[in-house]
């Protein structure tokens, strides 16, 4: 440890000289030969596949235009567990339906009635939290269409819900009159006087003698419920199939109604649930793959490039250059990275490239010291000596005769750098220093921790990002483990 320089100068007699020709093919064979290598390759291929998919399907500025844009997630339930938790928990899946073509079209004297219908699921365990529809555009020629919504209950009730006023033509406006195309109109169907009136009328009719008070604000519990049998006036949820009916009465058959979005708010959402802002965690988790791979490969690649080339130069040139490089890498390798990373990112701004730059700046020295000691061995080897005797230049010897011999080792080391880079970025993001325009797993964890999701048990928010961080790091570890025989020839099995 103290005397690394002089010890490394003389090749250890027990070690076979580091010569490995055809390194990359040998490396591939090693990877497929061991169990850990195969698992590592499989995981790695999976991550690359997902990353490619994300790269091609996600918008380029996903972080700004979608992830950090509250408008995108406005309709989603907040802190909702994944849909599949319904199998062991009382949750109601969140459902969003887009209505394009009417189920029925009827021609009447005054024009045409288009009826859309949406089945809505409700069970005794829980009913939708609210019901809303969003109009994405209405175009008419003579009179504004009338839009009427009603909920058909399994116990025979038909509750009228709020209707949507559509502004009549303004003076100076020419047909067709277009409404809501620029800013979609969201209508909360499960509240308002129309629904309350219709509902209490129906209850008085269907369940006479029971006095119930409708909930304040959102009427959903009553819309999807009935009075309890014990006569206490409580409302219990109904098990059964509801149907939302939307009727559009248009004056002219050419009038257009763009796809209507109907949202039955649930308490569970999607494959992976939502966070405190209603963001679909599945989308964010997927986006983490290309980012993690980018951080890992770029950081590992750059560190390896710097570390290896300095090591080769240091070992081959010797003398003052060697001394300077060795002192320098000695100093850099003793710097505690995380505190400095925190300092620099706080000071210079939260950018992903800056994080990677600092990581590279502090991670190369280990490799330099190792490669140098290997090159010292090779320098006095026959291959290099004969190249020198033939009059090859220093640069040519280093790139053509020294580098190929240490290349397999360097590749294995490069893979070894990757998990460190991923974990460092995650740690920094977790401290709230991640790049705000590029969501990462670490940042999702940070959001969960900052808002206290951890202390109320929102496991779907804090577990999956961490598991993916660990899995990604493990994939690289497994690859590195399988390549270990290259790094340590003593482990090479006799074949």
């Amino acid at each position, binding site marked *: 440890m103290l005397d690394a320089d002089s010890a490394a100068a003389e090749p250890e007699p027990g070690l076979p000289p580091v010569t490995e020709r055809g390194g990359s093919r040998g490396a591939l064979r090693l990877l497929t030969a061991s169990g850990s290598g195969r698992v590592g390759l499989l995981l790695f291929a999976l991550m690359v596949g997902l990353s490619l998919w994300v790269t091609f399907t996600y918008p380029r500025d996903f972080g700004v235009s979608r992830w950090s844009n509250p408008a995108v997630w406005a309709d989603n339930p907040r802190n909702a567990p994944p849909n599949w938790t319904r199998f062991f928990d009382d949750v109601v899946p969140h459902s969003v339906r887009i209505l394009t073509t009417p189920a029925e079209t009827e021609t009447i004297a005054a024009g045409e009635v288009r009826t859309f219908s949406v089945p809505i699921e409700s069970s005794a365990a829980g009913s939708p939290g609210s019901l809303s529809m969003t109009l994405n555009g209405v175009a008419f020629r003579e009179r504004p269409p009338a839009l009427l919504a009603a909920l058909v209950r399994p116990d025979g009730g038909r509750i009228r819900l709020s209707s949507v006023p559509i502004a009549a033509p303004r003076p100076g406006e020419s047909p067709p009159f277009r409404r809501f195309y620029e800013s979609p109109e969201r209508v909360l169907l499960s509240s308002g006087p129309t629904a309350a009136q219709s509902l209490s009328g129906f209850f008085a009719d269907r369940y006479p003698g029971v006095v119930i008070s409708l909930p304040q604000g959102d009427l959903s519990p009553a819309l999807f419920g009935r009075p309890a049998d014990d006569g206490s006036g409580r409302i219990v949820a109904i098990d059964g199939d509801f149907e939302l009916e939307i009727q559009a009465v248009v004056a002219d058959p050419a009038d257009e109604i763009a796809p209507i979005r109907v949202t039955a708010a649930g308490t569970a959402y999607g494959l992976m649930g939502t966070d405190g802002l209603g963001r679909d965690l599945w989308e964010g988790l997927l986006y983490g793959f290309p980012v993690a791979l980018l951080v890992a490969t770029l950081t590992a690649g750059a560190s390896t490039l710097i570390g290896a080339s300095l090591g080769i130069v240091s070992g081959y040139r010797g003398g003052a250059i060697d001394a300077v490089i060795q002192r320098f890498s000695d100093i850099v390798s003793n710097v505690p990275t995380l505190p400095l990373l925190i*300092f620099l990112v706080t000071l210079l701004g939260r950018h992903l490239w800056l994080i990677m730059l600092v990581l590279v700046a502090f991670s190369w020295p280990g490799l330099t010291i190792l490669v140098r000691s290997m090159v010292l061995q090779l320098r006095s080897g026959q291959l290099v000596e004969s190249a020198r005797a033939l009059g090859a230049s220093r640069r040519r010897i280093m790139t053509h005769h020294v580098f190929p011999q240490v290349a397999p080792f360097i590749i294995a080391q490069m893979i070894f750098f990757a998990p460190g880079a991923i974990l460092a970025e995650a740690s920094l993001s977790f401290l709230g220093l991640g790049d705000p325009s590029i969501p990462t797993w670490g940042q999702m964890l940070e959001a969960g921790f900052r808002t206290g999701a*951890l202390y109320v048990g929102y496991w779907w928010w804090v577990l999956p990002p961490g598991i993916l961080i660990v899995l990604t790091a493990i994939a690289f570890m497994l690859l590195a483990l399988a390549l270990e025989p290259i790094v340590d020839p003593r482990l090479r099995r006799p074949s």
Partner: protein
Amino acid sequence: MAATVRQLVIRALTLFGVLLAVLILLVISLGATGYSDNLLRAQVSEETRALRQSLSQTVRDPAELERTVAARQAEIERFYGLDTPWYQRLPPAVLRVLRLDLGESRSLRTADGSRDVGAIVRERLPYTMLLLTSSSLVTSVTGLIVGVRMTTRAGGRLDRGVAYFAAISFAVPAWWLGILFILVFAFRLQWFPSGGMLSTPPPEAEWDRARDLAWHALLPILTIVVVSVGPYIYTVRTMTLSVAQEDHVLLARAKGLPERQITNRHILRVAAPPIVTGLVLGLAGSLSGSILVETIFNWQGMGRLYFDAVGSLDEGVIVALTFVFTLLYVMLRFLLDILYVLLDPRVRLAS
């Protein structure tokens, strides 16, 4: 002996170079980005505003007021050194930091309200040390016992299991494991508190307080131990195994020495230096890791202080703590070198 001293001196100089390099990096990044200037200017304008307010009560003439304020402002600027460029102003500040005079914080305080960063660090440091030393102790004892035991069963199922466990440990960030533990042990099972250092209200009696503190420290310590014990067991096992195959051990066995004596005197004594190295390097790693682990468990040590300083953008504290962390790290590294000399006769006697 002289050679050893020379090596230790070189090592000390290198590590001092690390400290200096870090400080220079801090100064350049503070100065060249104009960060320090902006900071001081904000301070000056704040003080000038306060001055103008208090003067306006007594000085009625606006021109007179302006003149007095301007004169005073120049004075304040000179006091903060804003009339000199950063590369002249900051070096004295560095020297001050080197003498451990760490300046004042903007918002963070000690329990009794002092804003002296040195006092804050002195208040927090023992708590960090409590976590780090106790977890290292548990790790080293477990590692030694299990690692040495495993030597006799090398290649077995347990051996392979520990190898995988060690490999996975490298991939699991301690802070995420902490999150997992809080979810399971504090939230689901409610065996341990989810964070903090003392219950509310804290117990009165001295002894009860200590017990309460230990109770809160258990989960963070367990987190650090679980992450670091796997690699350590593996180091111990590998080192002991390679020594156990050497000739002198075979000779000791041939002499019929008791197995315990062979393990203690002939194997562990020889394998001690790398085993200790592994432990101290692990400790140095946990030092940086403590920033995150303490944050998770709301443990009011140095790491949590760092997190709070980053959160409240208290640059003075961030700079001071970056330096203190580097200092502690470098000191650990030097301790390692001294231990190495003490433990390895080959290093000690080489001349």
